[in-house]
């Protein structure tokens, strides 16, 4: 499932949407218990402020800006098995670090290896591919316990992102205009090319294709026979195989993307896409094989739209409705008219975005383009409490919500409220247990998050203007947290987990490479510095 979003909200926030995120509410409204959506005055917003302060805001703009979504970074280490791969654009080398023993192996890549992606591979082999931005090629690196093999593959100029098929057969290098570095790009520059690499060929082969103006997402279908590039014009369909080719363009919405946000969600199996455009009540479902379309017109503008993890249902937020509503329907065939879709009204709350839990049994509703302290937890699991909800006050304007793999806990990144001396704020929110959230004020803004599948999470905080930086090691079951200071500034997108080693990592800015590893069981940290020349391990 993918989603694209043009981010225009920061300026609007600066223009006056930032008022009022008081600390005066109770930490949790869960005492009211689950509530039914039909209950218009049901106490679920007991701590959501009075009617004069819906959703914890004090000023509601007449036309709220689009909601914001969080991007991923490819300029970061990646983990495969017990290995952590780290590229150094300056030295032209890639380090393979055993996250358990902290032993380091180095291999040469091309000129300026920068953007790394893990490649699924057979047992006993770890594989990754890195874009060499200086030599306009990629190094496909395969490592066994004793050997490292590297193959160089030509790419187009300017690639900065990867999409890799789940079977590891194909990697697509593309240019994400939203993450270009350096000078602002010309409005005419479409960054249209991508490079399809067949990693199963011997040697790996590459095919350059022009897919449309400014690709924002590239995804594969379930059986790896097609890839889809979401571009300004719509969705370009790529046929893979021995000679990859562009087989068609499915147009999507005639909206002006310079003024309208567009969400394109492609089903995990690549069979259909669900699309909404900001300021429109329409949801379009497009069959990607036949280009058959259906348009569902809902009662109000759709401010967010997400597909469930299994791709069987879609959840739309009607954030402009009064009260806001959440609508859920089966996809690609809803089976009933929009008026009969399952829905919940969320009175007294500011709800414009939705994050669906991996379990597909919970929807987290919030707003982040307009300050709001509240997160509404909507039970979407079948059963007695289906579509009941409760609202949690997290005491600071929500910027983003991240749900743990088991869906039992969410972590929210927030802005600290006015009057707080803290620079940042995050909350650990139990989603199924009715418990108060753990609210943690920080000395720097929360920037990165990673969840393990063993009930742990890492939250990295840093402030580029000061030495305040570190990582919080969080136990999700007990809502406990421990702070580990970092020796240098953490890199963007470089906080992660090496599952087989049961360790987390935070890569940091350092001329010779620096990574702090954290034992997820004990919380003990070890920092590996200078692994480019002679590794030195420091235990904290």
């Amino acid at each position: 499932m993918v989603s694209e979003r043009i981010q225009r909200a920061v300026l609007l926030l600066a223009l006056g949407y930032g008022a009022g995120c008081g600390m005066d509410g109770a930490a949790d409204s869960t005492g009211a218990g689950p509530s039914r959506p039909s209950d218009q005055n049901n106490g679920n917003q007991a701590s959501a402020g009075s009617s004069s302060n819906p959703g914890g805001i004090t000023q509601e703009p007449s036309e709220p800006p689009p909601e914001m979504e969080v991007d991923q970074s490819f300029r970061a280490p990646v983990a495969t098995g017990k290995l952590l791969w780290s590229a150094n654009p300056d030295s032209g080398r890639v380090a393979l670090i055993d996250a358990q023993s902290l032993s380091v192996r180095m291999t040469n890549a091309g000129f300026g290896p920068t953007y790394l992606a893990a490649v699924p591979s057979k047992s006993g082999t770890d594989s990754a591919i890195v874009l060499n931005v200086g030599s306009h090629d990629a190094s496909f690196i395969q490592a066994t316990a004793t050997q490292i093999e590297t193959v160089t593959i030509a790419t187009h100029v300017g690639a900065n992102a990867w999409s890799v098929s789940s079977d590891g057969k194909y990697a697509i290098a593309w240019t994400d205009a939203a993450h270009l570095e350096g000078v602002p790009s010309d409005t005419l520059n479409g960054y249209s090319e991508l490079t399809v690499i067949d990693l199963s060929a011997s040697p790996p082969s590459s095919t350059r294709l022009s897919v449309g103006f400014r690709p924002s997402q590239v995804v594969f279908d379930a059986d790896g026979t097609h890839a889809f590039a979401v571009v300004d014009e719509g969705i370009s369909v790529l046929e893979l195989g021995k000679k990859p080719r562009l087989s068609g363009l499915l147009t999507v919405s005639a909206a002006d993307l310079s003024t309208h946000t567009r969400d394109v969600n492609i089903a995990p199996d690549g069979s259909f896409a669900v699309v909404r455009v900001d300021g429109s009540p329409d949801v379009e479902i497009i069959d990607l094989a036949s280009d058959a379309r259906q348009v569902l017109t809902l009662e109000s503008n759709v401010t967010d739209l997400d597909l469930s993890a299994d791709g069987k249902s879609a959840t739309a937020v009607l954030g402009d409705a009064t009260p806001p509503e959440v609508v859920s329907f089966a996809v690609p065939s809803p089976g009933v008219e929009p008026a009969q879709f399952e829905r919940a009204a969320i009175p007294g709350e500011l709800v414009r975005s939705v994050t669906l839990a991996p379990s597909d049994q919970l929807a987290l509703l919030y707003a982040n383009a307009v300050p709001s302290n509240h997160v509404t937890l909507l039970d979407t699991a079948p059963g007695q409490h289906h579509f009941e909800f409760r609202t949690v006050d997290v005491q600071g304007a929500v910027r983003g919500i991240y749900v743990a793999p088991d869906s039992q806990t969410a972590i929210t990144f927030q802005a600290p409220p006015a009057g707080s001396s803290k620079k940042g704020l995050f909350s650990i929110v139990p989603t199924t247990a009715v418990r108060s959230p753990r609210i943690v004020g920080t000395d720097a803004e929360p920037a990165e998050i990673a969840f393990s599948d063993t009930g742990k999470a890492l939250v990295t905080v840093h402030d580029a203007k000061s030495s305040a930086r570190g990582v919080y090691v969080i136990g999700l079951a007990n809502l406990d947290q421990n702070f580990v200071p970092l020796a240098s500034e953490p890199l963007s997108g470089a906080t992660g987990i090496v599952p087989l080693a049961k360790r987390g990592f935070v890569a940091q800015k350092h001329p010779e490479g620096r990574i702090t590893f954290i034992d997820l069981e004990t919380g003990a940290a070890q920092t590996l510095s200078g692994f480019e020349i002679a590794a030195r391990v420091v235990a904290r």
Partner: protein
Amino acid sequence: MRGNVRDVYPSPDGAYAIASFVSPTRDSGVKPGFAAIPVSATTPVRVQTTEAPVFAVAQSAGKTPRAIVTVSDGSAIFSAYVVRMPELVVDSVKLPSRPLPGATGLVPDAGVAYVAQAHPQGRITFINLETGVARTITGFEIAAKVVNGQ
């Protein structure tokens, strides 16, 4: 199309077209460019920015159609862009001197494009249509000198 169209150059078989854009004003901050248009397919247009306005266009048809687009500001910036169809991928080559009018073309059987340029002793740049690699021959009027990659 993203830009305002100045001229359209259809390919010999009409399957593709190159559209050059109206040159932006100096202080507009916008680059000139062209678009490669698949006329007989419903695939996206390729928009390419250039460092100078489009000067000449030549195209071939057949199984592996190609186009070459030269750009020139008339004084210092000269480049050639090879467009490979149907992929619509573009490779660019900087030209060492000013392209001559009517002297940009393709030799499909040889797999090259050529751009003749202003030079007292003659200069032609040949560009491989598959790899985009350029070779420039200078001074062939008196004694040819071959330089790779220029």
